[in-house]
C-alpha cells in the first residue's frame, strides 16, 4: 500500500473501478488470476468484479488484467457517482 501509493499514481487510481462487459466476456478467468483481490469467479467461471475503486497498490495489477483479457471485455472506468 505505502510502496506504490505515491501522490501521482495514487490519486488517479482511486477514482477508477473495474467494469466487465458481460456481453463480450467468455469466462476465460484470466482476470481473476491476475487480481484475485478485486475479481472472483462464479460457479460458471464468469467474473464477479468489485464495484469499489481500485486501491493504489492494485492499480498495476488491474491494468495488467485489462490488457490481458482475451476478449477485451475488462475496462477501467471512472467511478460512478453515488
Amino acid at each position: 500500500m505505502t510502496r506504490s501509493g505515491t501522490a501521482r499514481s495514487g490519486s488517479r487510481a482511486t477514482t477508477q473501478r473495474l467494469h466487465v462487459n458481460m456481453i463480450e466476456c467468455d469466462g476465460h478467468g484470466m482476470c481473476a488470476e491476475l487480481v484475485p483481490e478485486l475479481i472472483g469467479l462464479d460457479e460458471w467461471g464468469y467474473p464477479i468484479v468489485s464495484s469499489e475503486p481500485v486501491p493504489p497498490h492494485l492499480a498495476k495489477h488491474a491494468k495488467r488484467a485489462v490488457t490481458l483479457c482475451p476478449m477485451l471485455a475488462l475496462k477501467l472506468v471512472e467511478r460512478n457517482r453515488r
Partner: protein
Amino acid sequence: MTVPQLLRYDGRPRLLAGWLGTGRAASLAEHLAVNGPLPLDAVRGLIDTVTAAGLRGRGGAWFPTGRKLATVAKNGRAAGGSHVVVNGAESEPAAGKDKLLLGAAPHLVLDGAELAALAVGATKVTVCVHRGTGLARAITAAIAERARAGWGGAAVGLSITVMEPPRWYVSSESTALANFVGGGEGKPRDVSAYREGVGGKPTLVSNVETFAHLGLIARHEADWFRMAGTAEAPGTALFTVSGAVRSRGVYELPVGVTGHDILRMAGGPTEPLQAILLGGYGGSWVSPGVLAAPFTPEALRTLHASPGAGVVVALPIGACGLVETVRVAAWLASQNARQCGPCFNGLPAIADDLARVTWARDRTALERLRFRMSMINKRGACGHPDGVVKLVDTALRVFGPCVERHIFGQGCAGLYRPPMLPVPAPPSPNEGWR
C-alpha cells in the same frame, strides 16, 4: 385544501378519452376534435415544460422524462444527430396497455413522438410495435393519414417509420430496441441508448404511454398535467388488471390511487386474494396488505415493489404462488439473449432450483437458490436477470408458508388448479433476433 377549484383533476381519462366513446381507433379528425391541433409552437421550451410537469417514464422505470429528453438533446448536439424510438413492443405477457393505446389513440402517441423528436433535434422516429398483432399495419396507415393531411412531422422534415422487433422478452429493452432499429439484433448492449443508440447516435427510447402523455402536456402545459397524480409522480397511468377480478382490462387512473381503488375499477376480486403480482414478470409479488398503499414508485419502493409497467395480477388464495412463479421464471429464463454468462447460466439454474423446491421437496435446492440469486443479481448487461431474481425472491417471501408445505410434502391445494399467469409459447427456433 388550498388548491383552487380549477386545478383539480376532474377524474376523466385523458389518454383513453376518445376511445371510451367509440371503442375503436381515433381517426385524425376525431383526434383533432378531442385533443386539438398539433402544438408545433410548443416545441420550443418543451423539454422545460415536460420537466416542470414531472412526467416519468411509463415503461416500468419511472425515470424523469424531462431529464432523459435533455440528455438526448445534449448528447445529440455533440454527436451531430439523434434518433427517437417509440417502444410499443410490449413483450410483457400480462400487460395490454401499450397495444390498447396504440390501437385506440395512435395519433396521440405519434404526436408525442414527433414533438419529442423536434424538441431533442432528432430527424428520425421509429415506432416499434409487437410483431404479429396487426399493429404495424394500423400505425403505418395512421402515419399515411397524417402525411395526406399535412399533419405534423412529415411537414417539418421528420421521417417516421414502423418496425416489428422480434418477440423475445429482452428485445423490448431500450438498448436492444436501439440495436435492432439500427440494423442489428434485438439484443441488449452494454452502453445506454441515450449515449450510443441507433447507428451509434444518442437515442431517446420511451414507452408509448409516455409519448402519449407528452402529446397532451405540449397542449395543456405542466400545471394541467399535475392536476392528476402525486407531487412526485404526476399524471394518470394505465394499469392492466387481470387474475381473480370481475372485469379484467386496462384502466386509466391518477397515479397515487391505492391498489384497492385499482381492483375496484376492475369490478373487485372474485375470490379472497393471497397475493398480487405488481409491475410485470420482472416485478414483485406483494401481500394483499399492500393494496392499501398508494401505487406510486415512492410508496411501493419501501415495500420492495414498483408500479413498473402497470401490471396488476390478483392471485386468489386457492392458487399456488410457487407453481405460478416456476412457470414464469422458466419462461423468462428461456428469453435470455445468450449473451451474458451469469444470465444464460444463472436463470435456467434458479428456475430449476425453484422447480425442485416446488415439485421435489428439495431443501438443498432452496439454499442453493438463495445463494445463486445473490450471485447473479446486477451482473448482466441489462436488467433481465435482476427482474427474475426480484420475482423469485419476492415469491419466497410472500409465499413463505407455501414453500414450507412444499418442502415438507404437506400438500398444496393450488397444485391442482390451472395456472393463472399467461406464459406465451416460446418463439420458434426460426424467430431469430432480427
